[in-house]
């Protein structure tokens, strides 16, 4: 190994260390920005080292340079534009698209290497190459479908057809079987069939998954992308790619598990699809009937203004109504009166892990007020008012009883608060399709209105009330 090659490998290791350290710094909000900068620096170094290799080896054609630079410029421009302009509510779609292009690029690395090496490729290298192409291909098409569902371009309802599972199984058999054959007998034409099978499998894997399960799907596709990049690293023997891919695979894996646990569902169950379409409604085991008590802005404002502790429970409905700024304004008003305000954030509030925190941070809510479920649950008993905005299933006490569609799902203990105000447009069901027993609790008052309008009215009522 030449001195140059040594230096490059050391630089790649340095870059990989920056990625690890950058992720480590993300363990508190105070240091997270620095973490991102460290990680960016590592990436810049790794790219510079790669450029150095290309210049040093001097095997690239003029067309090669032009193609590479043109591609990088076009991609950078698109990435920069979307990153600068994306709304925070649309963050899951963007992350999903980045998964798609990352997985796609990894697959292309494998495809190119396979076509170039032809019959000369060794059996072990073929294994990693085919894994790279298959995982990358599935991630590419699957992530595009997921982004389409999140954006509303594709229906977010689970899409299934008779025999869907058979088709999926068949695709998997074709992909893996042909892949196995290709390891023994390299063949570029057959590789095309593997690629197509992987792409179709990605589509048919995500189509049957409903909108509410998107946090899990995005996390899983994130893990896939990482794995595909690591496989691409195996193919071209690049340590930085192997390490980075493994880190992302671990991150995606952890988040997938956390999200699935927060919904009390197994990953297998989610991948098979169809939540909220079955006969879940019939499964309610003796939910208490009762009357719903409606409340007007003035009365709700009195409760809030004279409380000493208020816990706000935001759900996706808040984000859908774009009411983050209104809720922050109301909270600030209450705080200026000496009311202690905090936010109870369920892990699956939003469309991706941690989504609600970002939406509230955008609305200028200081992060110490954002409390995780385990931290806030014991505090509900001391709260004078719990203000539920656009959250449904995650507040339903029915989850504590066996025999309901959401039994066993970890919930926020909203019903422990002294009084509860629920802002909601109608008595409609959540994703689980069952009645929320919280709404008929005698302590609960329902404020029927659009979240944004309701919060504005509440804030002005509090202002009038206290002068």
């Amino acid at each position, binding site marked *: 190994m030449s001195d140059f090659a040594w230096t490059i490998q050391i630089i790649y290791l340095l870059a990989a260390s920056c990625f690890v350290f950058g*992720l480590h710094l993300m363990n508190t909000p105070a240091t997270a920005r620095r973490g991102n900068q460290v990680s960016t620096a590592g990436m810049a170094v*790794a790219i510079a080292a790669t450029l150095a290799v290309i210049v040093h080896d001097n095997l690239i054609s003029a067309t090669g340079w032009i193609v590479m630079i*043109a591609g990088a410029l076009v*991609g950078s421009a698109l990435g920069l534009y979307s990153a600068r302009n994306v709304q925070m509510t649309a963050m899951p779609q*963007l992350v999903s698209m980045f998964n798609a292009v990352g997985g796609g690029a990894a697959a292309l690395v494998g495809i190119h290497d396979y076509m170039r090496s032809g019959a000369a490729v060794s059996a072990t290298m073929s294994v990693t190459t085919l894994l790279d192409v298959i995982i990358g291909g599935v991630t590419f098409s699957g992530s595009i479908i997921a982004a389409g569902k999140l954006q509303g371009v594709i229906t977010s309802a689970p899409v299934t057809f008779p025999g869907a599972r058979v088709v999926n199984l068949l695709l998997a058999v074709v992909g893996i079987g042909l892949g196995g054959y290709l390891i023994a007998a390299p063949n570029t034409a057959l590789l095309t069939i593997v690629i197509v099978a992987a792409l179709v499998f990605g589509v048919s894997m995500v189509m049957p998954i409903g909108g509410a399960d998107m946090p899990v799907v995005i996390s899983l596709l994130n893990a896939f992308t990482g794995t595909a*990049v690591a496989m691409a690293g195996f193919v071209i023997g690049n340590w930085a790619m192997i390490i980075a891919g493994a880190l992302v695979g671990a991150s995606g894996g952890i988040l997938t598990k956390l999200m699935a646990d927060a919904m009390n569902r197994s990953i297998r169950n989610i991948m098979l699809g169809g939540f909220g379409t079955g006969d879940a409604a019939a499964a309610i085991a003796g939910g208490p009937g009762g009357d719903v008590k409606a409340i007007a802005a003035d009365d709700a404002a009195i409760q809030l203004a004279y409380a000493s502790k208020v816990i706000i429970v935001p759900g996706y409905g808040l984000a859908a109504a774009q009411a983050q700024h209104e809720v922050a304004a109301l909270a600030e008003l209450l705080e200026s009166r000496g009311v202690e305000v905090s936010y109870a954030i369920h892990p699956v509030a939003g469309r991706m892990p941690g989504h609600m925190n970002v939406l509230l941070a955008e609305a200028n809510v200081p992060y110490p007020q954002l409390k995780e479920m385990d931290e806030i649950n014991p505090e509900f008993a001391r709260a004078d008012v719990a203000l539920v905005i656009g959250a449904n299933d995650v507040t339903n006490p029915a989850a504590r009883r066996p025999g309901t569609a959401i039994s066993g799902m970890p919930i926020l203990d909203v019903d422990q608060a002294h009084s509860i105000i629920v802002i909601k447009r109608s008595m409609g069901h959540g994703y689980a399709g069952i009645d929320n027993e919280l709404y008929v609790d005698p302590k609960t008052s329902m404020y029927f209105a659009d979240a944004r309008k309701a919060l504005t009215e509440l804030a002005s009522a509090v202002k009038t009330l206290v002068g």
Partner: protein
Amino acid sequence: MYPALLVDVAIFVLSLWVGFEVISKVPATLHTPLMSAANSIHGIVLAGAMLIAVTAHNAIGYVIAFLAAAFAAANVVGGYVVTGRMLKMFRRRPISADTVAANGSNLNGHRDTGRSA
């Protein structure tokens, strides 16, 4: 035996464990920026995409090189920019109410407070 492959596999497995250790300490508050940061890290595939251009010597090769470079570059640049944008919003204390009310003229210079209201 393939010693080089064995080394690669060892690196992969140990990195997975490092990843589990480091990432399990990230609080739920930061899970979206975490995923976005992980996203930008897998943009390292750009290194692989650039190397395609070296060995590409026909039309298909150049098309693949172009697409891979474009995909990976979008991944890297977009990922880091959007992660930075998100993390900038996480504050310990709110910027003062008057500043927010004054429609976006704010302490940090270029925060887009007024835009999405």
